[in-house]
């Protein structure tokens, strides 16, 4: 039922529609500003934040530079603790592994904890094709799934919806999927949360298979870690008989002790809380407590390509906190759908083109979906220099010379030719000055995008360079 991102328009086209949507703009502004303020307060409480950030960055770099070593260690630890490890090179293989594992249980239904990795591989759709129904249990994912919508945020996939819209979706769709919404449902967030509780309760208590992702996988101990808020994660990780976790290979961290960094930086960056309500950790299986069958599916799906790019590699440090989305002025005005990918916002603008390559028109447009203001880098708890990677990817796109870039390349080269010689620049300036009365208020061609909404500055009679030369001549004459 959930749609896919296939065939999405390029970012500027999607952004044109999004910026004109008053409801969307209002919802996004309210939500992002709320969470920005909370994050700033929570981060401000820790006077060693910059040191935590540096340590988190270093732990991730250590892992990535020796990822083969840590993956083998993780596999050994999980296996020793009673879990089974599977390796999936791409989305199709991961979906096949999960489908087979579910089939082997004889079940036709499963519950899911919100997971970016399973969104990325389109697991729900693959399961549906195999006759297996996956129920999303995170409130925002539920809203998206019931609304036959697409996620628009890493942490809060339904950020583009306000309470009134959510109420309508619940009233309209819940009955078809299970327990209906109560008749008198209001748009009070508490009432909406209660409706979700009742709707999913029976599913939690009866479903025998669960699928999750993980925030961290500890190589040393084989421990998996999931941070959440609602308790739906605990339900999925605790009640079923079989648990299948699909985890990107970059989620590995070396040691248990490394968690003391991320358990401080992730909640504060993410929801602006000192700590999220629930964190679950498990190591293999525990007799008498929780699922007695545990499968870890390690997912590559393009990550090793990202790893191969020495500049772009840092994107794999991402711990999916979404602080960069919440602070981004572009995301705030377009929402996540415009990015045409499960990974929207600044991190999506560098991750998606790296995971999928910059060959497609959409992917090629994403590195330009930023004013390079640098706010994302400033708030990133693992110091991913997103502007640096954006510029790096722009180079890749520009040198490929795809649609529009041939003309741009020629224009850039021409500009560089003029600028590489101060006499040529001086001549060009004089040409511009002499034509100053001829410049129309609205320009044609691509530059017209400027004059659509902005006046041009008046063109001066003489450049600074000319003024300086005249002044120096005058000085020499006087002396």
């Amino acid at each position, binding site marked *: 039922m959930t749609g896919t991102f296939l065939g999405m328009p390029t970012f500027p086209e999607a952004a044109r529609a999004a910026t004109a949507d008053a409801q969307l703009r209002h919802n996004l502004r309210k939500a992002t500003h709320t969470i920005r303020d909370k994050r700033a307060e929570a981060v401000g409480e820790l006077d060693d934040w910059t040191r935590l950030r540096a340590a988190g960055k270093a732990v991730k770099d250590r892992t990535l530079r020796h990822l083969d070593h840590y993956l083998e260690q993780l596999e050994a630890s999980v296996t020793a603790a009673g879990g089974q490890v599977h390796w999936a090179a791409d989305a199709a293989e991961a979906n096949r592994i999960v489908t087979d594992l579910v089939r082997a249980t004889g079940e036709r239904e499963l519950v899911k904890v919100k997971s970016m990795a399973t969104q990325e591989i389109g697991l729900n759709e693959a399961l549906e094709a195999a006759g297996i129904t996956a129920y999303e249990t995170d409130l925002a994912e539920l809203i998206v799934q019931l609304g036959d919508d697409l996620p628009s945020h890493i942490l809060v996939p339904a950020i583009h919806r306000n309470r009134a819209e959510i109420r309508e979706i619940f009233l309209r769709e819940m009955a078809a999927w299970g327990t209906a919404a109560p008749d008198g449902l209001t748009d009070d967030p508490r009432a909406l949360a209660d409706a979700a509780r009742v709707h999913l309760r029976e599913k939690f208590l009866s479903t025998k298979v669960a699928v999750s992702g993980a925030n961290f996988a500890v190589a040393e101990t084989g421990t998996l870690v999931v941070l959440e808020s609602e308790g739906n994660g605990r339900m999925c990780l605790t009640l079923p008989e079989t648990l299948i976790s699909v985890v990107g290979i970059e989620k590995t961290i070396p040691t248990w002790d490394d968690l003391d960094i991320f358990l401080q930086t992730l909640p504060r960056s993410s929801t602006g809380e000192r700590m999220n309500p629930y964190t679950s950790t498990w190591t293999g299986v525990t007799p008498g407590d929780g699922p007695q069958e545990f499968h870890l599916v390690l997912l590559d799906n393009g990550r090793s390509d990202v790893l191969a790019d020495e500049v772009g590699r840092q994107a794999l440090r991402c711990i999916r906190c979404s602080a960069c989305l919440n602070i981004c002025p572009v995301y705030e005005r377009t929402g996540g759908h415009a990015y045409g990918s499960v990974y929207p916002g600044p991190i999506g603008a560098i991750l998606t083109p790296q995971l999928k390559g910059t060959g497609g028109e959409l992917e090629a447009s994403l590195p330009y*979906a930023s004013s390079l203001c640098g706010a994302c880098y400033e708030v990133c708890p693992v110091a991913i220099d997103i502007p640096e990677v954006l510029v790096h990817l722009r180079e890749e796109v520009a040198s490929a010379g795809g649609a529009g870039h041939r003309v741009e390349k020629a224009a*850039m080269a021409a500009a560089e030719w003029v600028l590489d010689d101060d006499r040529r*620049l001086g001549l060009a300036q004089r040409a511009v000055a002499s034509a100053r009365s001829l410049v129309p208020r609205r320009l044609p061609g691509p530059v017209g995008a400027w004059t659509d*909404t902005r006046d041009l500055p008046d063109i001066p009679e003489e450049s600074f360079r000319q003024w300086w030369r005249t002044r120096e001549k005058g000085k020499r004459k006087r002396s």
Partner: protein
Amino acid sequence: MRIALFITCLNDTLFPDTGRAVVRLLERLGHEVVFPESQTCCGQMHYNTGYRRDAQKLAVRFVKTFDDADVILAPSGSCAAMVRDNYPRLGAAGSRLQRATTALAPRVHDLSELLVDVLGVTDVGAYFPHTVTYHPTCHGLRLLGLGDRPYALLREVRGLELVELPEARECCGFGGTFAVKNPDVSAAMGADKARNVAATGAEVLCAVDNSCLMHIGGTLDRQRAGVKVVHLAEILASTEQEPAQL
């Protein structure tokens, strides 16, 4: 002190008043300004749009032009940041370009850094009898870390009433070629910035970067908002004897 002026291509071509103000201000403070004529452009637009090789050529030109200068002033936050932050990444590790740009970077300053840190002044004897609000541009804020410097300079200007800009840290939406490649988002950001500027009731919006001011000013002008955008240099150059004209 002898100060080499890197005027920047945008100021040179479209905003010569800013350059003239810089010269007037620094000479008034008793310093010598030199203008190496072989200078052109820092290459920021090329670099940020993905044309590294073009940017490299312009960086080489910059290094040749300014190599023997002890103090270099770039009255544009983003161009100063380009030289300081990005030049050292332009050349391969250990290359001549990388060594030269790394050595040069610490000698490049924005106007507020030059005045406060290098020349040690905040009161430059300016007079500007207007209500002013200040937009701390992204590069000034995050790459250069200008912090309180521009405010400290503005607070000492006689007759000037400084009013706080709401949501000041928000990007104005210029972003170089971003303004043309993503015109709708850029315009939306510009509209919000213009609304915040207008809400202050200020007559003048001040910044250290004419590129951002061109974008915000162009938006304000199109709206006939009645707010003028002015580079910090022009406010600091203004005196009782020779007041800047709005």
